[in-house]
C-alpha cells in the first residue's frame, strides 16, 4: 500500500508534537495505512526498550561533590566540613531561595500565597526531594500501602492512584510542607525522571482548570478538584506532564474497579 503522508509525521505524532486536528488525522490514517501504523507501533516499542534499557547515565557521586565544591565559595568550604555542607546545601539552598523570594515579596504578599510563589515552593520541594535523596517516606508501588501511611499524619486523606498501566509507576509518598500546610507528596516515575504530586485541601472554590508554568527547567501543572488542590512538577516535557496530569485527574474523578 502506498501512502502520501510524510513518514516524519508518524514520529511527530509519537512524540505528541502535533496539534489536535493533525493528531486526529493521523489516528484515522493509521486505520487505513498498515505501513504508517506499523511504523508507529515500531516507534512505541523502541521507546519502551530504550526507557527500560538502563541507558541513562547518572552523574557519579564524585562529580557531584566536585561540582558543588567548585561553585561553593572557598570561605564557606573552610567553615564547614564536606558532608555537613553537602547536607545543609541540599536542604538549605531551595529554602534559602524561597526565603529570599519571600522576604523581597513580603510587602506585596497577601494571604493566601499567590500561585507564583506556591509554584516556586513546589519546584523547591521537588528539587529538595531529589537532592537530599529523600524522595519517599513510604516507598511502595501499592496504593493500598501508600494511602494508609498518611493516616494520622495529615488532617485529610489524599486519594492515591496507581498509574503503572499508563507508564507512570507509583514510587511512594512523603510528607512535605508547602504554603504553610503539611501536604502529601506522591512520587511517580517516567523513564529515569521523577514526578512529584503535591496535594492538600483547597482554599478556593471550584475547578479553575489547569494552570501551567515552568521555572528552572521544571514544568509545573496546577489544578483544583473535589475540594483539593493539586500541584505536579517534573523535568519531563510539558506534553508528558500534561498527559500525566490528565490521567491523574481522570483516575481521581473515577477510580477504576
Amino acid at each position, binding site marked *: 500500500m502506498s501512502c502520501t503522508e510524510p513518514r516524519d509525521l508518524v514520529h511527530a505524532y509519537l512524540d505528541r508534537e502535533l496539534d489536535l486536528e493533525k493528531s486526529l488525522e493521523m489516528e484515522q490514517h493509521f486505520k487505513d495505512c498498515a505501513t504508517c501504523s506499523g511504523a508507529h507501533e515500531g516507534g512505541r516499542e523502541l521507546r519502551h526498550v530504550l526507557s527500560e534499557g538502563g541507558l541513562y547515565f547518572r552523574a557519579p557521586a564524585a562529580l557531584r561533590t566536585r561540582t558543588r565544591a567548585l561553585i561553593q565559595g572557598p570561605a564557606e568550604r573552610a567553615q564547614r566540613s564536606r558532608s555537613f555542607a553537602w547536607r545543609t546545601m541540599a536542604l538549605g539552598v531551595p529554602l534559602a531561595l524561597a526565603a529570599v523570594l519571600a522576604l523581597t515579596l513580603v510587602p506585596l504578599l497577601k494571604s493566601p500565597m499567590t500561585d507564583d510563589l506556591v509554584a516556586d515552593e513546589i519546584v523547591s520541594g521537588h528539587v529538595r526531594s531529589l537532592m537530599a535523596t529523600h524522595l519517599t517516606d513510604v516507598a511502595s508501588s501499592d496504593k493500598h500501602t501508600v494511602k494508609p501511611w498518611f493516616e494520622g499524619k495529615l488532617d485529610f486523606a489524599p486519594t492515591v492512584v496507581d498509574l503503572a498501566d499508563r507508564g507512570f509507576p507509583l514510587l511512594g509518598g512523603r510528607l512535605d510542607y508547602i504554603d504553610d500546610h503539611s501536604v502529601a507528596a506522591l512520587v511517580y516515575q517516567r*523513564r529515569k525522571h521523577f514526578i512529584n504530586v503535591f496535594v492538600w485541601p483547597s482554599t478556593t472554590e471550584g475547578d479553575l482548570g489547569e494552570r501551567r508554568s515552568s521555572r528552572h527547567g521544571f514544568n509545573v501543572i496546577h489544578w483544583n478538584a473535589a475540594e483539593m488542590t493539586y500541584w505536579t512538577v517534573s523535568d519531563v516535557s510539558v*506534553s508528558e506532564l500534561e498527559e500525566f496530569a490528565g490521567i491523574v485527574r481522570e483516575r481521581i474523578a473515577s477510580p477504576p474497579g
Partner: protein
Amino acid sequence: MQSDQRSIQSSAKITQLTPPVARTAFEASVLPHLDAAYNLARWLLRNEDDAEDVVQDSYIKAFRFYDGFRGGNSRSWLLTIVRNACYTWLRQARPEDVTVPFDEDVHGRDSGGGPEADVLRSANAQSLKDALERLPIGLREAIVLRELEGLSYAEIAAVADIPIGTVMSRLSRSRKRLREFLSARAGQEISS
C-alpha cells in the same frame, strides 16, 4: 587528583567575585540538572571519564556566564553549553567523530511492525548501548535528548541549534537506524 585541584583553584577566583545571592540562584536552578548534563556528555563523547571533565568545565563556564542567563529554561540553557563543549572537545581530540557526514535530507522509509517488535523486546542492554553509540553524532544527540531526557522538539532545536523540522527528520532516521541495527544484531545471534 591534580586536575581537580587546579579547577577548584581557578574557580575560587570566580566564586569570590560572585555575590552569594547569584550563587544561591545558580545552585537552585542549574545544579539540579547535573544528571542531564552528564548523561548528554556521556552519550556525545561515548566515554565516562571524558564526560566528567567536560561537564565540570561546562559548569565553570555556566557559572561564569550565569549573569547573562535571563531566566527561562535553565536545563536547556545548561545542555546547550554542555553540548557545545562536547563538540569543541571532540573537534580537538577525535575530529572523525564530528566530521562523519550523514544524509541530512533523505527521508527514510520505516518498515512496519510485525516480527520486528519481538526483536526489539529481546534486545539486551549491551546491544541497545551499541546501537546508540553507532549512530552519527547528530542523530545520537537528537534521540538521547528526546528519549532519555524527554525534551520537546523546540527544546532539542534550541540545544542542538537546528530547525524543528530537522529535529523531526533526525528522530525519524535515528529510530529507523536503531531498529535496523537491532534486527541485524538479532539475526546474527540466531545464525551464530
